[in-house]
């Protein structure tokens, strides 16, 4: 059971993308296919993130994945234990992973209830035969391969694809705030994982050897430039500007952050204006991926503070 404290807090958030290639490159025993090498810069970025996470000693990891798509509502994994074999439908040649995970059901229920209070349509996933999506699994493996911390998995309602980007992301803002309230109420030390790639322009053919790194580079120069611009703003802690640019970034770089995880995480953290730690950047089949950390505990922002509320308000007004 997760340890509890008087009042819960989000101690950190990570941008934690999910290309299955990273698991493939690492060759953990859970994954069937074997590789020679590959995507080291990103894998080593995750190694640094793993160390930070370990030091934070969270009770729970919350992960929002674009590859659990729910057209009706925002769903939460709500079964204590889930296991199975996850085969990536796009890259079955490199990702066939046997997983077992424990869910913090009480927190999932609280997130679900708080989301409903925010006017969102929310649902718990109670079916024990459910197959967890490969985005959730890849992100969780890459950040914590020990699988010893309970998780809360959130689906992508994909509202930004059905509504306008701005309207959809406003829903993700509410989901983030609901998540924060639930964490605080239940007294969890929580880490948030936004499972998103940045620029999502990709190649349409895989090299014959998937880990042939001589073929790996950004698919598009403009996409790469967008990624660097956004990462640099995040490194400066210029959150306001990042969120002002976000819709344009999404449109022009086909950024996967459109699916909402990034906004959800920032809303939950109170849009902190603190410099992000960039653990590393790399491309996977041409897409741009950054592993980044916002350590709220270090920045002494892990408690609800009027400053973060104020900056959140300012950002909403700017939008």
């Amino acid at each position, binding site marked *: 059971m997760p340890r509890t404290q008087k009042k819960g807090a989000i101690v950190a958030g990570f941008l934690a993308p999910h290309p299955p290639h990273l698991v493939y490159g690492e060759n953990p025993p859970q994954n069937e296919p074997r590789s020679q090498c590959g995507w080291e810069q990103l894998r080593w970025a995750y190694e640094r993130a793993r160390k930070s996470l370990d030091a934070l000693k969270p009770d729970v990891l919350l992960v929002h994945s674009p590859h659990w798509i729910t*057209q009706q509502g925002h769903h939460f994994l709500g079964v204590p234990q889930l296991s199975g*074999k996850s*085969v990536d439908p796009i890259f079955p040649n490199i990702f066939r992973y046997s997983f077992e995970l424990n869910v913090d059901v009480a927190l999932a229920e609280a997130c679900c209830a708080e989301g409903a209070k925010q006017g969102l349509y929310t649902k718990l996933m109670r*079916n024990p035969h459910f197959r967890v999506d490969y985005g959730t699994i890849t992100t969780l493996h890459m950040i914590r391969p020990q699988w010893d911390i309970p998780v809360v998995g959130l689906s992508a309602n994909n*509202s930004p694809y059905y509504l306008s980007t701005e309207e959809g992301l406003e829903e993700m803002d509410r989901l983030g705030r609901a998540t924060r309230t639930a964490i605080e109420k239940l007294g969890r030390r929580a880490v948030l994982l936004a499972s998103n790639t940045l620029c999502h322009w990709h190649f349409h*053919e895989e090299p014959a050897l998937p880990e042939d790194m001589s073929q790996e580079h950004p698919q598009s120069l403009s996409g790469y430039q967008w990624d660097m611009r956004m990462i640099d703003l995040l490194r400066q802690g210029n959150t306001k500007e990042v969120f002002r640019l976000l819709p344009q970034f999404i449109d022009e770089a086909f950024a996967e952050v459109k699916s909402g995880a990034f906004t959800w995480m920032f809303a939950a953290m109170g849009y902190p204006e603190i410099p992000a730690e960039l653990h590393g950047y790399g491309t996977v089949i041409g897409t741009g991926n950054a592993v980044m950390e916002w350590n709220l505990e270090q920045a002494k922002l892990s408690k609800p503070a009027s400053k973060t509320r104020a900056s959140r308000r300012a950002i909403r007004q700017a939008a």
Partner: protein
Amino acid sequence: MAVVSAFLVPGSPLPYVKRDNPPWGKIATGLERAGTALVQSKPDVILLYSTQWIAVLDQLWQTRSRVSGLHVDENWHEYGELPYVLKIDTQLAKACVSATGTIGVKSKAVNYDGFPIDTGTIVAANFLNPGGKIPMVLASNNLYHDFALTEKLGRLAARLAGKQKKRVAVVGVGNFSGAFFRHEIDIAKDKLVAPKYDRWNKKILALLQAGDRRGLSAALPEFATKGQADMGFKHGAWVLGALGGKFTGAQVHAYGPLYGSGGAVVEFRLK
């Protein structure tokens, strides 16, 4: 002609997992009627394309000789599981993989234990081919393929089946209008999201029933945009391609709402 029967069916799990809800039960009954017609046509193989099997790199084809499992829909998990057992015509599927280069499409064979079979394929197979007795060829929906290219894929698959002297049932799995309700509704009173989608669906169904191929070709591009046809109605392209555009009419076994989207069970008349 290799094609002995052809169908369009919805890929929503609702008629399968929740048929006691009257609007969805009506679609389930229609699917069973289509299943009877399919079996009576005595096909050697079913060529099935589901809009829900998404591919983004190559055109994927299932080539594992037997696929089975218990699937839970990502969205409708509360209504239970979808068990499936499918027999694959690997000879024909592999022929498709090898031949698509001739129409400029790179294909890949999918032969992995645990590969996720999409809800649409399972629902269609369970209604139209209960027990998985008839071998199938399963084709993916590559998001970068358009209507015309999907027609070519359907035509090619049917032609290759003909070469192997097989009688073919062709099935396209997907919705008519794809717009759906995003929030909780009273499911017993399910209806189309908006009257315009109902009008569009009925217009396309009438053209199919009348066997008006020219009218259909003219209407489909606008149906894709204004009627928000599911995935540009590419499941229709698959069937029309396999038929070489030749059909004389169609029977609508069922039509109705599936959480706001348009679900229709259509059997093409071939003579």
